[in-house]
């Protein structure tokens, strides 16, 4: 596939340097890291090096705090289930309304089938967490708080450090789904109150199916996978050695490119956003424009539907994503758009562009050039557009 790939929050391209690090582990260094021979030792050494690479990206105090998993979903599930098992008397969970399904669906299950009380903290129109509601929900009955670092749809950042300190004061463990944040913003977990953190390889130019859970030293932990003694018995099963080595290399590269992400990529994103807002009437940025990931831009277009936008973008070789009902197979727009109260005239037309270090100036130019035509074409088909009040610039949506 060639084209303009602006769907990096869904997944990223494996960096060729990452792939090169991985390849020998399939056919040459294929030993089992636990084995007592040279084949095993060679691989074991690489796995430990990868652990240190991930440790460096997270700014963690110890490499033993990194547990390799199969990805974000497993890390999220492990963090929550482990904590509940470790603190059986505490029967409450705090999370937010805008989490990824990897957290939300698990919490719903725990609520319905296991009798836990789940507090889902709401957000305001810009996707900011209602910290008063958070303070009220915290108590000694709460086993775990699971609140994401960055939202996958809007890129909006939550003040996880402050939330984690409050959780600690209340005697709860704090987990953050940092799948979208890791590699895009600097972190120093050594100086943080965050106890558990999830990350996923395929969001940072490593392959799919590899991830990690950070477990701060001293945190009570109960494994979800029981079996062999791999990962210090915290995650049994023969290590996905090629994936782990890939994740390590990707972590190192992410550190290397961090400055680029926060300068060049951010500038590209801002230019894309300004270009679209200036050229297209009746659209607006969702989430908090002043506090979000440098690579993400989510714009809601009034009176048209997201899937139709994506199909037309695809004709130009442009890949983006939408929180519209129709793209997800559900019948409602995304829970994130609904949670923010994005007006229903535009919730179905929310479109996410997520850039990466591979994104170029020329690609952004193309999107700015073709997007107004696509929007105009769909609006011409829409029964609502002709009668709508036109707001060429400074469109102010009315949130419900």
């Amino acid at each position, binding site marked *: 596939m060639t084209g303009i790939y602006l769907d990096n929050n869904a997944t990223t391209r494996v960096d060729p340097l990452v792939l090169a690090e991985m390849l020998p582990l399939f056919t040459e260094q294929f030993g089992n890291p636990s084995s007592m021979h040279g084949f095993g030792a060679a691989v074991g050494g690489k796995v430990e090096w990868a652990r240190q690479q991930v440790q460096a990206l997270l700014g963690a105090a110890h490499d033993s705090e990194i547990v390799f998993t199969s990805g974000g979903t497993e890390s999220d599930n492990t963090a929550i289930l482990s904590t509940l098992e470790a603190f059986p008397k505490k029967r409450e969970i705090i999370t937010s309304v805008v989490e990824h399904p990897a957290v939300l669906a698990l919490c719903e299950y725990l609520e319905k089938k296991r009798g836990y009380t789940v507090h889902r903290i709401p957000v305001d129109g810009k996707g900011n967490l209602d910290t008063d509601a958070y303070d009220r929900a915290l108590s000694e009955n709460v086993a775990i708080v699971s609140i994401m670092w960055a939202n996958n749809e809007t890129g909006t950042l939550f003040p996880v450090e402050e939330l984690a300190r409050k959780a600690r004061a209340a005697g709860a463990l704090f987990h953050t789904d940092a799948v979208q944040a890791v590699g895009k913003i600097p972190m120093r977990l050594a100086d943080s109150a965050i106890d558990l953190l999830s990350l996923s390889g395929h969001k940072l130019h490593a392959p799919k199916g590899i991830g990690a859970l950070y477990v701060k030293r001293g945190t009570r932990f109960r494994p979800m996978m029981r079996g062999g003694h791999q990962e210090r018995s915290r995650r049994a099963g023969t290590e996905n050695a090629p994936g782990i080595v890939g994740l390590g290399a990707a972590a190192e590269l992410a550190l290397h490119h961090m400055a680029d992400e926060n300068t060049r990529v951010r500038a590209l994103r801002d230019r894309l956003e300004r270009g679209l807002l200036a050229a297209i009437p009746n659209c607006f940025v969702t989430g908090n424009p002043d506090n979000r990931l440098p690579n993400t831009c989510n714009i809601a277009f009034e009176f048209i539907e997201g899937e*139709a936008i994506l199909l037309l973008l695809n004709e130009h070789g442009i890949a983006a994503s939408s929180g519209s009902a129709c*793209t997800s197979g559900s019948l409602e727009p995304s829970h994130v758009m609904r949670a923010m109260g994005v007006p229903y005239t535009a919730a179905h037309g929310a479109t996410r562009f997520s850039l990466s270090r591979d994104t170029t100036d020329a690609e952004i130019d193309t999107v700015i050039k073709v997007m107004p035509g696509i929007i105009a074409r769909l609006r011409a*088909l829409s029964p609502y557009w002709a009668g709508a009040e036109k707001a060429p610039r400074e469109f102010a949506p009315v949130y419900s």
Partner: protein
Amino acid sequence: MWNYTDKVKEHFFNPKNAGVLDDANAVGEVGSISCGDALKLMLKVNPDTEVIEDARFQTFGCGSAIASSSALTELIIGRTVEEALRLTNRDIADYLGGLPPEKMHCSVMGAEALHAAIAAYKGEEWADDHEEGELVCKCFGVDAAMIERAVTVNNLSTLEEVTHYTKAGGSCQTCHEKIEEVLETVLARAGKEMGASRAPAAGLVGLDAIKPLAPKAPAPATAGKMTNVQRMQAIMLAIEEIRPQIQRDGGDVELVDIDGKDIYVRLSGACSGCSQSAGTMMGVQMKLVEKLGEFVRVKPASLMPAGV
């Protein structure tokens, strides 16, 4: 990514009859912007002949909603009102070469708009102009009449199918019980029973539009026609062909038995017991599959069932 047929894509990328019809004398509007799709159908009906001379649409919705609207106008232009009334959502879906099951509601929206427009033309009250309270599904504004039409026309028998076709029940789910009641009543009238949920939506998913995977290499002409003896000879021949290669590595392979799709061989020499023997077996298997044009499994003779 949805698997849309070429016809759906054609009608989405180049919709026919899109826009406003200035001299329309019948308009039907269904859906709403909060529900995620809406269609305004405008007709110009000749009062003398009752022929629909022109039709235009405006649609807010996804690719298949726009394609269904376009298909609808193509289906009705030139027909009389009575003929058009006989069209169902099925006709729209068929015209498009099928729609994914989750998207069938787009074709239903088309049929509903048509009925609404014709009702308006005749000066009748459209059944969808229900009072508050008559709605079965409040989230998507679906009443019993619409569910009944969808069930009858498309032979639906499960709650899940009703959701795919009408959207009813696809949000808060509080209406599921009411939907099942309607479904039961309609089915009972037809002498049928409600099916367990998750039954596949038969026939309408456009599977016919999905081409079977082309085989990588043409199967040998003999495939399927071989007698048992021919097949055995082909297997022996294939093994003879690979032997030299294995012998070069200091091993050997010998055919022991053929049991249907399981072919038992014995590896000897350098191959037996070495870590590569599984790889050798795989190589033999690939060769046999290629020669026979059918799938067989090559297994070590040690795995032969007792008594064979």
